[in-house]
């Protein structure tokens, strides 16, 4: 015999018809938001172009980026076979540009993502708890920010060695303090809000309050800042490549391509100019997007 304990069975409530759009819906919502600013639209188109190039690199590149054509060495200038010419080793510049997009679009955003995770954790903890934790983290940030960025990169890369992981690490170390400072400022303002007080009263944990109540509300300025930072990071990765501290050869790397080409610029300027244009256009894309997003945020 079964005893009905009388406890009401909790039926899972039918999911309320949510107004929250799905991922695709959100993406189009974001596009609609962006469309109000031509600057942001142009910026996202440029970025989208390079992202597509990076994704479809194996199909788009006419040659293997590391294949050497000794015949082309005699005349590396742009020709019918090599639309943008070949480089100092007889490799197809167009194919190297296409594969190089993949390199830079993996390393730079990953570096910033990692810096965002570290930086916002630092900023949230410093802003939320205050006191000595804040003091220690702020002094640490001051210390890192006192180094000119390039010096920090060069020191770290010459010591650790040039690899994608070490570049991501260097980006994290140099960018997270500034991100932390930005987040801290936001948190200082947000932690006095009523909904944070309400969450505290409900007995939510500090981690929950920081991650669920505060973090989502700091995203506006952080996204704009991250766009600018990805642009700077692309420049810095290019600079490292140019100084010979970038990804080890033969990885196609735009900055490294300019470095190799700079030696022969008096004979073959095309070798240096095409990668320079590629890197500049991608940075322009991120900067235009950041500028447009700021314009839209100011309008609201």
């Amino acid at each position, binding site marked *: 015999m079964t005893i009905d304990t009388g406890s009401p069975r909790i039926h899972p409530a039918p999911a309320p018809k949510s107004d929250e759009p799905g991922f695709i819906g959100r993406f189009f919502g974001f596009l609609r938001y962006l469309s109000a600013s031509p600057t942001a639209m142009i910026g996202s188109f440029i970025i989208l172009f390079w992202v597509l190039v990076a994704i479809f690199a194996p199909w788009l590149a006419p040659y293997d980026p590391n294949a050497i054509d000794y015949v082309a060495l005699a005349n590396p200038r742009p020709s019918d076979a090599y639309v943008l010419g070949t480089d100092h080793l007889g490799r197809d510049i167009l194919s190297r540009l296409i594969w190089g997009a993949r390199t830079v679009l993996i390393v730079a955003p990953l570096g910033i993502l990692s810096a965002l995770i570290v930086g916002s954790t630092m900023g949230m903890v410093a802003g939320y708890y205050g006191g000595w934790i804040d003091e220690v983290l702020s002094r640490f940030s001051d210390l890192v920010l*006192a180094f000119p960025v390039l*010096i920090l990169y060069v020191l770290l890369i010459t010591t650790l060695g040039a690899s994608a992981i070490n570049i991501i690490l260097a980006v994290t170390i140099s960018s997270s303090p500034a991100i932390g400072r930005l987040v801290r400022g936001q948190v200082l303002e947000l932690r006095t809000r009523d909904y944070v007080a309400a969450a505290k009263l409900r007995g939510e944990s500090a981690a929950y309050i920081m991650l669920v109540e505060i973090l989502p509300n700091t995203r506006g300025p952080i996204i704009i800042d991250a766009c600018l930072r990805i642009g700077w990071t692309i420049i810095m990765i290019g600079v490292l490549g*140019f*100084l010979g501290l970038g990804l080890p050869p033969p990885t196609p790397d735009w900055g490294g391509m300019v470095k190799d080409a700079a030696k022969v610029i008096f004979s073959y300027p095309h070798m240096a100019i095409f990668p320079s*244009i590629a*890197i500049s256009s991608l940075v*322009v894309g991120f900067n235009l997007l950041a500028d447009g997003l700021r314009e839209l945020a100011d309008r609201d």
Partner: protein
Amino acid sequence: MIVFVVRRLTLMALTMLLASMVVFVICESTPGSVARKLLGPFATVEQVDLLAERLHLNDPTPVRYARWLGVLIGVVSDPAADASLGETYQDSRGNRYFGNLGYSTLYKEPVNDVIWERIGNSGLLAGIAFLIVIPLSLTLGVLSGIKPGSIRDRVISLISIVTSSIPEFASAVILIAIFVVLLQWLPGTAPLETTNRWTIADQLILPVTVLVMYDFGYVTRIMRGSMAEVMAQPFVRTAILKGLPYRQVILRHAMRNAMIAPFTVILLQIHWLITGVVVTEVIFAYPGFGRMLMDAALFGDIAIIEAATLVAVTIAVGTQFIGDIGYMLLNPRVRFK
């Protein structure tokens, strides 16, 4: 005010001390190679070991750091200055003096004989660039901030975004291709020695242009934002409505207030210029601080790296300090704390 200044100066000294420590720890993870670098590839293992012993390179890192610091403030003499090691490492200033930065293993000279002239050269390059960037970007910023959204604003904004997106090495390469290779108007290197074809002024044109191109956009954007904000303030409307000439409103009411925010940004820009200076000097073979630092970092010359980092950190922290003081003097609403 005095308490504030003293507190900030103490913090500055502390930051520099920590920074020198950080650099030491990063660079000195492989100290044994210093002796090898000094003696060259043909020295025997015994000779290398002996020199490492004489220079106390086998001491633990904290001990070596303390010795470096002692040499810097002049209480310990540099082990490299030991006369029995040879004549190469003699400092005309004596063995113990305040500000002894040690010996450069790359240039085989006391660091103090190497760095100051180069810092001066870099100062010349950055100084000229700065003198062009500031008036240019302030003017452009005001012109575009007066009427946000106008055609003029759009054009100036677009130009400043695009130029500040072009890395220095890319703009240098493009400028060299045009003005050196194609037109042959300018030299592609700047060794700061008059040749029979190019004067020093000719040699400076391209490096300065590269720095200006990259840097003016950012200050322009800040000035534009600040100006646009001020133009929307009630006091500007009042000034216009009370019938003041438009020129007067802009020059006497709006611009003075709009200058406050960019002031700190401009000073921080000096910090930013350092990166640009390194890249520009490497491209144009300019005998400056940045190229020296790159050479030293690639070679592993700790004494030069330490000295250069200290200089760079001093510039960074110092300009920030001046910026804070100036900001408070400009804006009485900010109090000293």
